[in-house]
């Protein structure tokens, strides 16, 4: 792995609500290397988006707070507790973000050109004219035909796929080192999804930027990711390379996710759903948080589970391959041989 760009250690982002403390993110650690694509996978409500917003320092405070002991460092610079101006200088410049819902993530009262131009003028100090030229160039780069004419259009005249491209163009305007993409394809048609993913992969290659991709779609993961982080109930339950996760899933949750996908290898197989829902974040179970839904539930699950290397010691030896399930300690790793 190349140089570490973003390093998150024991991140705990808690929401202090009237009903109690919702531990939306409860001890997540991960690393993103330069030029790498890391996928954050999990179902709704497991803390993916909160993790990404924590990185940008965009959690609404109150009610959310990043707890003491958490650390987020970007190129060696600590972001937790950093003053707002220095975070602001980072946002849009070094770290950019694109959102799930392209229909509402552009400002309806400005033209597309004005919105991209605003980012360019602010962060790169271009004047109006240069910003317009550069905006058209960016639109061309994200694959929008006839960019000069499109600059004067308002967002509501564009399709979802087009708007997502515009969002990507805005996020790219300042040549970020890290792009956080929060379910960028969820709201799009399947055909458009593939195009956007291809565009992201292509841009990553060309610009050498790292991507933190948040998704619940394992199909997307297989397509574009280098490494995968499976999240469940505010914790990382399994991490590994794309190959390791798909070929040798260790955590019952990961296995469940994979079995809920249709497969070309076994046509006609019934898809398995994981029964139940994620437990309430105000009141996580003390033991394994997946226990209630786990098909392999057994004595031993009621104890708190630590992250460890499959078949290895209690503590994770390699940061890039770990599982949070006591069972997998015993089974030797198949992909290591």
């Amino acid at each position, binding site marked *: 792995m190349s140089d570490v760009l973003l390093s998150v250690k024991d991140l705990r982002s808690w929401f202090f609500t009237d009903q109690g403390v919702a531990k939306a993110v409860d001890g997540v650690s991960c690393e993103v290397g330069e030029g790498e694509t890391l996928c954050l996978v999990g179902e709704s409500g497991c803390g993916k988006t909160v993790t990404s917003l924590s990185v940008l320092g965009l959690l609404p405070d109150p009610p959310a707070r990043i707890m003491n002991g958490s650390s987020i460092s970007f190129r060696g610079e600590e972001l937790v507790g950093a003053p707002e101006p220095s975070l602001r200088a980072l*946002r849009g*410049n070094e770290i950019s973000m694109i959102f799930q819902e392209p229909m509402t993530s552009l400002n309806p009262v400005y*033209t597309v050109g004005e919105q991209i131009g605003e980012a360019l003028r602010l962060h790169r100090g271009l004047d109006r004219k240069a910003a317009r030229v550069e905006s058209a160039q960016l639109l061309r780069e994200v694959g929008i035909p006839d960019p000069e004419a499109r600059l004067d259009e308002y967002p*509501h*005249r564009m399709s979802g796929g087009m708007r997502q491209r515009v969002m990507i163009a805005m996020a790219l305007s300042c040549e970020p080192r890290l792009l956080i993409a929060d379910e960028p394809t969820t709201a799009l048609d399947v055909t458009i999804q593939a195009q956007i993913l291809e565009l992201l992969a292509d841009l990553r290659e060309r610009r050498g930027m790292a991507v933190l991709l948040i998704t619940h779609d394992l199909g997307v993961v297989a397509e574009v990711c280098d490494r995968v982080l499976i999240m469940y109930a505010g914790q990382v339950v399994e991490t590994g390379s794309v190959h390791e996760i798909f070929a040798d899933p260790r955590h019952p949750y990961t296995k469940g996710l994979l079995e809920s996908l249709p497969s070309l290898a076994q046509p006609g197989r019934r898809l398995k759903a994981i029964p139940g829902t994620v437990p309430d974040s105000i009141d996580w179970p003390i033991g394994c948080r997946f226990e209630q839904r786990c098909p392999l539930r057994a004595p031993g699950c009621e104890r708190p589970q630590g992250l460890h290397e499959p078949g290895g010691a209690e503590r994770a030896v390699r940061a890039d391959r770990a599982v949070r399930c006591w069972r997998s300690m015993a089974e030797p790793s198949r992909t290591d041989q």
Partner: protein
Amino acid sequence: MTELAGGRARGGSASRLSLVLPGLPQLLAGRWGVGGVALSVWIGFAWVLVARHDVVRRSLSGAWDERLAVGSLVAGLLAAWYWSWRDTNTKMECAGARAGVGQWELAVRAFSKNKTAVAGLILVVGLYLLALITPLITPDDPTAQDLPLRLQAMSAAHRLGTDQLGRDVLSRVLYGARISLTIGFVAVGISVTIGTLLGAVAGYLGGMVDSLIMRFVDMVISFPRLILLIVIVAAFDPSIFLIITVLGLTLWPGTARIVRGEVLSLKRREFIQAAEALGYSRSRIVLRHLIPNALGPVIVAATLGIGNTIVLEAGLSFLGVGVQAPTPSWGSMLSDGRDVLLDAWWLSTFPGLAIVFTVLSFNLVGDGLRDALDPRVRS
């Protein structure tokens, strides 16, 4: 090719026509609304310029408000000319182009379909145009007394009669329009600016700032406004400037509440999150991203607010704490005519009608704007 040439020739003749009579080419093209307005403004102003050329000439070396009126007259004529000429020249090229249509253009389209609202808008614009050139069209000095001609009924010399001091009622109603419209516009301008800024800041920042600002709003609202106004006006020397300031500084809480509510829902929208993720400063997000999106209801409230402010000012003047004599004001005219209502009904009736029509047109425009700017109603 021939069609192109034809189009260009039509454009040429239309723009020549627009130099003779602005608005006429638009009328001929079937756009009777804008064309009619431009044409009647131009004809009306030109008529004033010709028919009352002696007054215009005298006003050129008169007081500053007379010179302002002459300036407005000339500016109105030139503006009608220029607009019509430019309109005929650009319409031709733009018609086919796929120009970007924003929220505002959509709202304009929805508004122009609403006949009563457009009628209200024409009345409002007409009132402001009249107010601008009042000194040039009034038959008499509104403060000139002519005691032998007291309480005269309507006649050719005094179309709306005279009051107890022999002053011309028509002139006084016209000058009163000036005062009322100015007070309404400036006071609402002040209050909307304050209300929008404070409401947006409160809604966006939330927390302590929000609580402080909104408790301040509650405090200002809970003050009995009329009594506050009477005390302030009684303590200081009442002048139009003071009334505008007092009204402007007490009317903003309503706007602040509206804007805060809008901002609270807007700030959860993803484009605001996106703006934050792009590292924009708070002031930029509030001023450039939140306020323009919250402006619809503000414009509606402001339009309705002008009407209310005019009524409020009339009430103050009626009570004698508003605009002071001899400056004509609708409210004080109403109050002056009260004692002789049965003998000289024209004294109170015409300023009363003026108030009703003015406020009615502002309310018509406000309702039309509400329908046009609210996407839920527009569908």
